[in-house]
Each structure stands twice: as structure tokens, then as C-alpha cells.
């Protein structure tokens, strides 16, 4: 019974991580399992500067994020065309390299801090990211 609940929670966490907009309401019923989610409007609030990331939702229970250690370009693989460090569904351990941030031609390895399953790659390969931006969501 609790396994079922755990699985439901993991699924909800994945949905939250992949959510395109903040979740306004979440309802989880346990008997005859039912999950209901309601998203907020996707329009950004006025006066929020374009480049400022939206604050992560605080209801992402069980999720840990690998964040950018510095402002730079995010790469998923050691070299162009090579296999990415991790894919969604992979299991990572603390200290494992999961990405690279390039800043002024210096390659900075990005490591997972917590063990768990990669549920979502949040940043696009080759895209510039800010300091602290969430790159990868990991379910512990």
C-alpha cells in the first residue's frame, strides 16, 4: 500500500519537475489513487526581468537539483557528439560528474550532490545558464 503511495509521489515529483509553469493546486488521493494538478497561467509577472529564473516551486518534495556552479554554457557530454554524462532514468551517486559548464573556455565539471534517479534534464545542451540555475532534477 505504501509502495503504491511512494510510486505516486515519485510520479508527482516528476510531473512537478517537468512542469512548464508553477503548479497552483495539487491533489493526491490514496484510495483508488487519483492525482489532480492545476497549473497557473504561464504569463510571467510584470517587471520580472527576462533573464531571471523563476523561483523553483517549494512543493517539489523528494527532488534534489543539480545547479550551475557558475554562469556559463551548459554541456551534457564531454565532447560534441559523445554520449551524455547522464540521461533521464539513470541513477547517479554523489560526486558523479553529470555535466560541464564552460566559462571563458574553461571546462568546469558539474557533479551530483545527492544520490538518486535523474528525472529531468532541465537545461538545454549548449545553452547559457546563470549561477544557481537548476540543470538536472534528481529524485532521491
Amino acid at each position, binding site marked *: 500500500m505504501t509502495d503504491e503511495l511512494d510510486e505516486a509521489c515519485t510520479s508527482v515529483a516528476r510531473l512537478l519537475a517537468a512542469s512548464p509553469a508553477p503548479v497552483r493546486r495539487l491533489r493526491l488521493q490514496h484510495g483508488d489513487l487519483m492525482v489532480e494538478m492545476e497549473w497557473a497561467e504561464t504569463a510571467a509577472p510584470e517587471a520580472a526581468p527576462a*533573464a531571471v529564473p523563476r523561483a523553483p516551486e517549494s512543493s517539489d518534495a523528494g527532488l534534489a537539483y543539480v545547479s550551475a556552479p557558475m554562469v556559463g554554457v551548459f554541456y551534457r557530454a564531454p565532447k560534441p557528439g559523445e554520449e551524455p554524462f547522464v540521461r533521464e532514468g539513470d541513477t547517479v551517486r554523489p560526486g558523479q560528474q553529470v555535466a560541464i559548464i564552460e566559462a571563458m573556455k574553461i571546462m568546469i565539471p558539474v557533479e551530483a550532490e545527492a544520490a538518486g534517479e535523474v528525472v529531468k534534464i532541465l537545461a538545454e545542451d549548449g545553452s547559457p545558464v546563470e549561477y544557481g540555475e537548476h540543470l538536472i532534477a534528481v529524485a532521491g
Partner: protein
Amino acid sequence: MFESVLIANRGEIAVRVARTCREMGIRSIAVYSTADRDSAVVRIADDAVHIGPAPGRRSYLSPPAIVEAARLAGAEAVHPGYGFLSEDPDFAEICAANDLTFIGPPPDVMARLADKARTRALMAAAGLPILPGTTHAVETPAEARETADRIGLPVIIKAVAGGGGRGVRVVRDAGELTTGYLESRAAAQALFGDSRVYLERFLESARHVEVQVLADTHGGVIHLGERDCSVQRRHQKLIEESPAPGLPDELLDRIRTAAVTGARAAGYVGAGTFEFLVGRENDFHLMEVNCRLQVEHPVTEMVTGVDLVREQILIAAGERMTLRQEDVRLDGVAIECRVNAEDPARDFLPTPGVVTTFLPPGGQFVRVDTHGYAGYRVPPDYDSLLAKVIAWAPDREQAMARMRRALGEFGIEGQGVRTTAPYLRDLIDHPLFRTAKHDTGLIS
């Protein structure tokens, strides 16, 4: 003209630069550290990039973070403000290597003027008066003693890589020379990452008078008058004004001309400041050249009507200055007070915390440059400057009365937050300041 400018700074100066960008139709990009997540410039600028954690060396002092932020936001130029990377020639080089225009002097000019001892030699060669002292780093305590014997006590020991009055030591007694020299070297290493120091004769009761210059890339060099910054505490400026009061016009003319001569000799480009000491005999001596916008630039703006940040941007974009020397007029008197989040009752201890009430003064001819607001958290990570209050009036008497009124209006409250506003008001009322007979020794 630039389409976009990244502001590589924080606090009130970042807001100040963003305002001019907006007026010029230039997209402004703010950068912020984690400690400044809720800072005013993040809201005021068109874009904002989170560049690092609170410590300066990983955010505002990190060239890679700034350059990557510029790349991310598509900035064409970088305005460094004051402090942080504003006088770092290496950073200016890095900007150039990354196709970013650094809004400031060329790196080689900055490198030359960053060495304060070499600057003295360069300016002496250009015919500017300098104080007796060394034009190179003093290598040993014995050399420090020999120099002091030659030029006479008291001496002031300064960092070659220094500036802004930080880490300077005055030695009045020959017996304290060795200790003073060694302590200065240690302080210089800690503050500037360069232990070299030089010696200068210390003028006991002098006025600090600095000249604002503008130079373009087409050989145009002008001055915008001077500022008196004699009200200092431990070599930190508290009150500045323009024009300098109580000095003969003929002397001021000579000081202004000297600054322009110095700027030409250095091949200066951009906005720069030539700092002089004026002695009791109306003798004047060049101290140092600052290759950046100064904290106290608003007093010059108020008496000349010139937006210095706009001029900096136009010059960096390669435009020819439209302003001619004969167009520059100093109209009226402007006084600036630096309101810091410090407690004068506890030896000016910084008082970081949340500002719950923030009611800046306003009204006729009062300008307040600030990044503060009700609910703003003064972070403990940076300097304590919270606001600059600038008052303009047709004459000094009215300007002082206006400043007194403005400081009295300033309502700042917060758990543990104290400011220097009441202390500044007392200084404005000081008989020596009121009669313009004050010098750098006013507070001691």
C-alpha cells in the same frame, strides 16, 4: 551607439547607470549575486543575470562570471561603475578579447595609472607638482627611514596598487617608521594583493581637491571643474561639494589646467579624476589619478548639468565630445553626503539588516541616489553605502540649509539598522565647515 550595456556593479551606482541607459534607449543588463537577489537594479534594469554567490571574488570581482553574463544576455559593452573591477586593466583586456567594449580608459593607460608611485613620476615629468617622496616602491625599512630623513616627517605610507584612501598610514615619529612600513606592506598585500608601498610627505592640514576630466578618442580633453572632498574620516570621504569653497579662483584655475595637462600626458580616455592636496600656502600637489566614475560624481553633474555616465558611454562608443571647455559652467553649489548603514555611536560599525521604513528626502533641488527601499535587506557582504543625498542651491549657505533639511527628512528604520545621517547633519553644522575653513583634519 551600443544597443545594450551590462552593468558590472551593484548598489546605488548600478541603479545610477541603468537610469542613464534607459534615457539613452540602451538596453541595460544588471548582474547580481545571491545576496543581491532582491536589489533594486534587478527590477530597474531591462534584464538581470545571476552571476554567483555573495562573496565578491566569485561574483562582482570574477571576470569570467561577468563575461559569461554578457555573452548570455547579448551585451555589447560593460560599465564597471566604481570599485570592484572598474580599475582593473586585466579585466579591460579580457573584455576586449571577448568583443566587449569596456567603458573606461584603455588598459595600458589604466595599468600605468594603477601604479600610484609611477603615476607620480609620469605627472612630475608632465610638469605637475607632486609632494616630496618616492616615485618607486620602497623596498626595505632602511630605505623608508632614509626617505623620511630626506623629505622630513610626518610621512604618509601608501600602497602602490592602492587608492581610495584605503590602507594608508601616517607616521609622525621616526621611531614608528619601521613598524609603520611593515604594517603598511601587510595591509597593502591584504587589501590589494600587492605589498609594494611608497612614501610621501604628509601635509598636516590640507584640502582635498579633485578635478573631473573627460577625454574622448579624438584628442578632446576638458575638465568639469573640481570637487572638494576634505571632510574625511580615516581617509574615507563623507561630504563632497562643488565648486571647492574658500579657495582663490586663480588657484582653482591652475589646478583645473594641471588636471587637463595630466590627462593629455597620460593619453587618458573617458571620465577620470585627478586628486590634489592643497596646502596652507595655496600650494597644490597631485596625489593620484582615478580611472573610473567617482562616488561623488553627482555634485559635478548638479553644477555643470552634464550627465557623466552618458558622456562615458558616448566616449566609449567612439563619439567625439560635443562639449567644449567654454561650454562648461559651474552654476551654483552642490553638496553630497554619503549616508552609510553604520552606527556612529559604535565607531561606525556597519549595521546590516532589514530596512523596514525607508523614506528618502525629496523636494526642491534635492537628489537622492540610492538602491534602498522599505523591506530592503542591507547585506553584510559589501560596503555600507546606502544612499547619497545631493543638495543644490545658488549659493553655499542655501545649499547647506537644504542639506540639513534633507538629512533631517531621511527616515530609515530597521532592526539594528543605524545610519550616519544624524552625524552628517552635525558635520554640516560644524563652524569650520560652515565657514569653509575646514581641512582633512576636521574629524580627528
